[in-house]
C-alpha cells in the first residue's frame, strides 16, 4: 500500500477530528452531551489504566468467543445435516424462517430469565445471533459442490468420508468462512447487547453504568475500546480465512 493511496483517508480523518475539536470549543456545547476529542482521549487513557476495565474486557471477550465457538460448531453441524438429509430441510424450514424474522435482540430478556444475569445468558445471545449466517452459508457451500468434481470422486470410487473430507468441506469452505466473518461481528454485538440488559460485568454493562453516571467522555472511551476489540477479532478471522483459502480468488 503506497502513501498516495492512504493519504486521502488520513487527511479526511484528521480534518474530522479537527472539526469536532473546533465545534466543541466554539459552540460551548456541554461536555456531558459531546466531549471534545482531546477530552475523550484523556478519558480513554484513564480507563486503560484502571484494573476493572480489563476485567470487563475479559468478560466481554470470553462471552463473545464462547458464543462464537458454539455458533460455529452448531452452525456447521446443522448446515451439514440439512444438506445431507434434504427431507429435514422441509421440516426445519418454518423454524428457520421464524427465527430469522424474530428480532433476536427482543429475545434477550427471555434469555436473562432462563439463564440468569451471569455470563451464560450473554453467551447464549451471542451464539443465537451468530448461528444463522454460519448455518446458511454452510448449507449454501455444501450445495455448491461442482458436479464435475463429484464425477472425479465417483470415478475414483471414493467413500462417503473421503468425499466429505476432500470434496464437500473444501468446496464449502469459502462460504463457511464468509459466514464465520459475519458470525464474529454478530457474536460481539450479541454479547454487548446482552450485557446492556442485565448483569454487572462486561464492557456493555460498564458503558451503561458510565452513561448513568453522566461520564460521557468515559463512555466514548469505552466505545473506542469496544471498537478496537471488535476490529481485532474480525481481523483474526479474516487472517484465518486467508490462511485457509490461499487458492481462492477472494485472496489476492
Amino acid at each position, binding site marked *: 500500500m503506497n502513501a498516495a493511496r492512504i493519504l486521502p483517508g488520513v487527511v479526511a480523518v484528521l480534518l474530522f477530528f479537527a472539526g469536532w475539536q473546533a465545534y466543541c470549543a466554539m459552540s460551548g456545547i456541554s461536555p456531558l452531551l459531546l466531549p471534545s476529542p482531546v477530552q475523550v482521549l484523556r478519558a480513554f487513557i484513564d480507563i486503560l489504566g484502571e484494573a476493572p476495565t480489563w476485567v470487563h474486557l475479559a468478560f466481554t471477550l470470553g462471552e463473545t468467543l464462547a458464543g462464537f465457538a458454539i455458533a460455529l460448531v452448531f452452525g456447521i453441524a446443522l448446515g451439514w445435516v440439512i444438506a445431507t438429509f434434504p427431507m429435514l430441510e422441509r421440516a426445519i424450514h418454518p423454524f428457520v424462517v421464524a427465527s430469522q424474522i424474530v428480532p433476536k435482540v427482543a429475545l434477550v430478556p427471555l434469555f436473562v430469565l432462563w439463564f440468569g444475569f451471569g455470563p451464560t445468558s450473554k453467551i447464549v445471545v451471542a451464539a443465537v445471533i451468530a448461528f444463522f449466517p454460519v448455518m446458511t452459508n454452510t448449507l449454501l457451500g455444501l450445495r455448491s459442490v*461442482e458436479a*464435475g*468434481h463429484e*464425477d*472425479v*470422486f*465417483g*470415478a*475414483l*470410487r*471414493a467413500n462417503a468420508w*473421503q468425499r466429505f473430507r*476432500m*470434496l464437500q468441506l*473444501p468446496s464449502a*469452505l469459502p462460504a463457511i468462512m464468509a459466514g464465520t466473518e459475519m458470525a464474529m461481528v454478530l457474536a460481539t454485538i450479541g454479547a454487548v447487547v446482552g450485557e446492556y440488559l442485565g448483569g454487572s460485568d462486561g464492557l456493555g454493562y460498564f458503558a451503561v453504568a458510565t452513561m448513568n453516571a453522566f461520564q460521557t467522555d468515559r463512555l466514548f472511551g469505552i466505545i473506542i475500546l469496544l471498537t478496537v476489540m471488535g476490529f481485532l477479532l474480525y481481523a483474526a478471522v479474516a487472517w484465518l480465512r486467508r490462511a485457509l*483459502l490461499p*487458492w*481462492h*480468488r477472494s485472496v489476492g
Partner: protein
Amino acid sequence: MSVAVSCRGVGKVYASRTGDVEALSPVDLEIAAGEFVVLIGPSGCGKTTLLRILGGLQQASAGRMALLPGADGRQSVGFVFQAANLLPWLNVEQNVALPLRLQGRDTAARLARARTLCGQVGLAGFEQRWPRELSGGMQQRAAIARALADDPALLLMDEPFGALDALTRTRMNQELERLWLASGATVVLVTHSITEAVMLADRIVLMSPRPGRVQAIVDVKFPRPRRPALEGSVEFQAIASDLRRLLGEEA
C-alpha cells in the same frame, strides 16, 4: 487377447419431465485389453452416457457390462472429462496424486509418483502452481496425469481435447499415444474430430444418432507411434473420407 470391456445389450433410458428419453438402444461391444478404441458419432447420440456407464458413474437401464480386473486385481478406471475438473484448492501435484491419496498411499510415495507424471505430461516446473494459474491445455494435461496416477487398467476419455486449439490438439494427441504405449492401458476415447479418431484409434466405433447404437466399426492398422505427417497420406485420407461418408449418411 483377453477382453477388457464387454457390453451386452447395454441400454439407457433417461426419465425426464417431458417423458422418457432413450439415449442408448442396446449396445453390444467388446474391447480387447490394451486396445485404443475411439467412439465417434453425432452429438447427443449417447457417447458420454456410454462412457459414464463404463466408468460406473451411471447405471445402465438394460443389459450387462463387465470390466476385466487389471493386473493388480483392481477394477481401476481413470476418467478424463471434457472439462479438466481439477480441484482448485489443491496444487497441480496434489491434484495428480488424488487417486493415490484416496487409496491411502503415504504422502512421499504419492508425491514422487505425481512429480514423475507431471514431467511426463510436460508440466515440469508447474507442480506447485494452483490450477487457475494454468492454461486450458495445461489443465487438461494435469487431468490426464491424474487419471494415470494409479495405473488404471482402463482409461476413459470424454472429448478431452475438445476445447483446445488445433495445434495444441495435434501435440496432445502425440503425447497421449506415447503415454498409452508406455502404460499398456485399455483406452476408450470419445471425440468429434475425424482426424483425431484416425490418428489415435486401433478401432473406431461409429455411433448412430439418438438412440445411440453401434453403426459401424472401422479398423485402423497404421503402425505406431504415428507421426502427424501421417495425416497427409492417401491411406489416412481414405479412412477419413469413409468416416465422413458414414457420419454424413445418418445426419
